[in-house]
């Protein structure tokens, strides 16, 4: 066995050109696989993040007549207990109202939060173009589109007409841009107390929102939540159910990425296999003499398995380095004007390790054909034919 390894090593060393060629082939395969994989994963993660990263991923709302949750502290408590995967729980008092800007009237969505909690989901602070969060009663922040429409600037007052017809003045303490025009256009964000007053909710809320660490588990967690909540008349929504088309898009992308990776792998496999098979023919003289001297068929085969293994190992290592170099170059040169890469790269250690392992595995599998050839080789053929 160790002799087989020594012989394999010598064969590889003595056929340097060929060895380098196979290693190059494997490396390029691994690098391409790793590059495409990281790119697609990065793309998907950023897509998911822009779509749902700054919104509620699981939302508990009420199905009773007045659409309110009275015992919301209990809901928050139970959600907190359920899973360490749940984070950024925030309650909100939401409802429609109208904004009156003298010449016109327009409908808006009042959203009252505990601002510190809500900020973890919606990142208002980051999105503020100017001003600060509306912590006090009768303060508000509005989106930049609404600000343009209503001509309300920082520290101006806007007039909200409540569903019951009352007029309430809110002081604009900030203008935000959340990069979604429907939010910038319609949200009027206040603290909980202000919204509760406008919407006549007393001390109730209309929904409990939260995010999860593993966004793709949102549907499972939502299910568990629905099952464990002790409060009646609630429904639990999750982003996956609400974004089926996004999900199927992502899925299609994953499948095509796997296809590319599989084809790269198959190409590598065929390459290694054929070069190793040629090398059996090239080394048939050596194999014949080794067999005449009494090497066992199994050990003769092992020579080629070891060659495959070593080629795969070295190829994988170099390939991963290549892949990192490729990703580095990509993030350095394929950049948007602001200096960020066109596509954010996601370095997934597990995935990279897996591509490497796959290359090693396929190189070893590829070596089985030549190994079989060498096991079948009869020394008499070699000895007779010179």
């Amino acid at each position, binding site marked *: *066995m*160790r*002799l087989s390894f020594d*012989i394999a090593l*010598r*064969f590889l*060393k*003595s056929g340097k050109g060929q060895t380098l060629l196979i290693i190059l082939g494997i490396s390029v395969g691994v690098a391409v696989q790793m590059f495409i994989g990281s790119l697609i994963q990065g793309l998907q993660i950023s897509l998911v993040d822009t779509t749902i990263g700054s919104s509620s991923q699981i939302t508990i709302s009420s199905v009773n007549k007045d659409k309110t949750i009275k015992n919301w502290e209990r809901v928050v408590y139970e959600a907190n207990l359920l899973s360490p995967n749940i984070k950024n729980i925030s309650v909100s008092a939401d409802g429609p109202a109208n904004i009156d800007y003298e010449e016109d009237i327009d409908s808006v969505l009042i959203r009252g939060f505990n601002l510190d909690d809500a900020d973890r989901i919606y990142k208002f602070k980051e999105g503020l173009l100017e001003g600060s969060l509306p912590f006090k009663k009768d303060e508000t922040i509005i989106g930049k589109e609404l600000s343009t429409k209503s001509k309300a600037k920082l520290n101006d007052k806007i007039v909200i007409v409540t569903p019951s017809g009352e007029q309430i003045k809110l002081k604009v303490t900030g203008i935000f841009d959340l990069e979604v025009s429907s939010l910038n256009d319609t949200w009027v964000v206040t603290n909980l107390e202000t919204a509760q007053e406008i919407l006549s909710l007393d001390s109730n809320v209309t929904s409990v929102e939260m995010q999860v660490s593993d966004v793709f588990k949102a549907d499972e967690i939502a299910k568990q939540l629905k099952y464990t909540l002790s409060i009646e008349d609630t429904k639990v929504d999750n982003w996956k159910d609400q974004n089926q088309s996004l999900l199927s898009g992502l899925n299609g992308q994953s499948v095509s990425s796997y296809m590319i990776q599989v084809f790269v792998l198959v190409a590598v496999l065929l390459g290694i296999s054929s070069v190793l098979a040629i090398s059996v023919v090239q080394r048939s*003289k*050596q194999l*014949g*003499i*080794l*067999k*005449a*001297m*009494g*090497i*066992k*068929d199994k*050990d003769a085969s092992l020579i080629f398995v070891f060659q495959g293994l070593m080629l795969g190992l070295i190829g994988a290592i170099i390939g991963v380095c290549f892949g990192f170099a490729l990703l580095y170059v990509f993030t350095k040169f394929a950049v948007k004007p602001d200096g960020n890469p066109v596509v954010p790269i996601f370095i997934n250690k597990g995935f990279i390790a897996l591509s490497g392992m796959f290359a090693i595995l396929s190189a070893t599998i590829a070596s089985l054909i030549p190994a079989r050839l060498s096991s079948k080789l009869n*020394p*008499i053929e070699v*000895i*007779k034919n*010179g």
Partner: protein
Amino acid sequence: MANIVELKNINKIYGDKIKTQVLYDINLRFEENSFNSIIGESGSGKSTLLNIIGTLDKPTNGEVFIDQNRTDTLDKKALSVLRNQTMGFIFQFHYLLPEFTAKENVLMPYKINSYKVPKEVDEWADELINLVGLAKVKNNLATDMSGGQQQRTAIARALINKPKIILADEPTGNLDSDTTENVYSILKNINKNFKTTFIIITHDQRIAEKTDRIIEIKDGRINLDLRK
């Protein structure tokens, strides 16, 4: 003396559709420690006979005994062990492994059986290398040696496991006459000192005359069997 090799009614027929019979009812015995030569015209069946003795080829029918054990019925694995332990081969084309040095080539049959080389075996390899006069080039790759040096390396290699039998097929076929003389005196000395049985195919009449027994093969049959 005991017979180290015994052939009983060996026939060898090549081909399925067009059958060519190469050996006809060969019966032969070789004694231990003997120094034998096989001569005959090209195509008479000498190599076929030697390869059957060496278990590299199988007879179409007949029985082969090596050291009293029947070999034509053994499986591939058992034959590998048998060849490794009891036989040394020297071929016309030396067949060294070009990726290895002279000394590594010499040690190869030992390592095939057991990877670790103990000190005494390493010293034995050096002794053999000295014996065939290769001390200076023992660390050269096989490809960096002359034809004669390569053939002498193959001789040292055939001896490393102290086999009972050495089978040589025109071992000096492509060497000049001085080197040929030199190689034969080495083989003869080994036969004397290590009690190794030699069966050597040669087309060189002068060399054959120096052996203890000359067997001539003609058209697949034993034509002559001369003992001194």
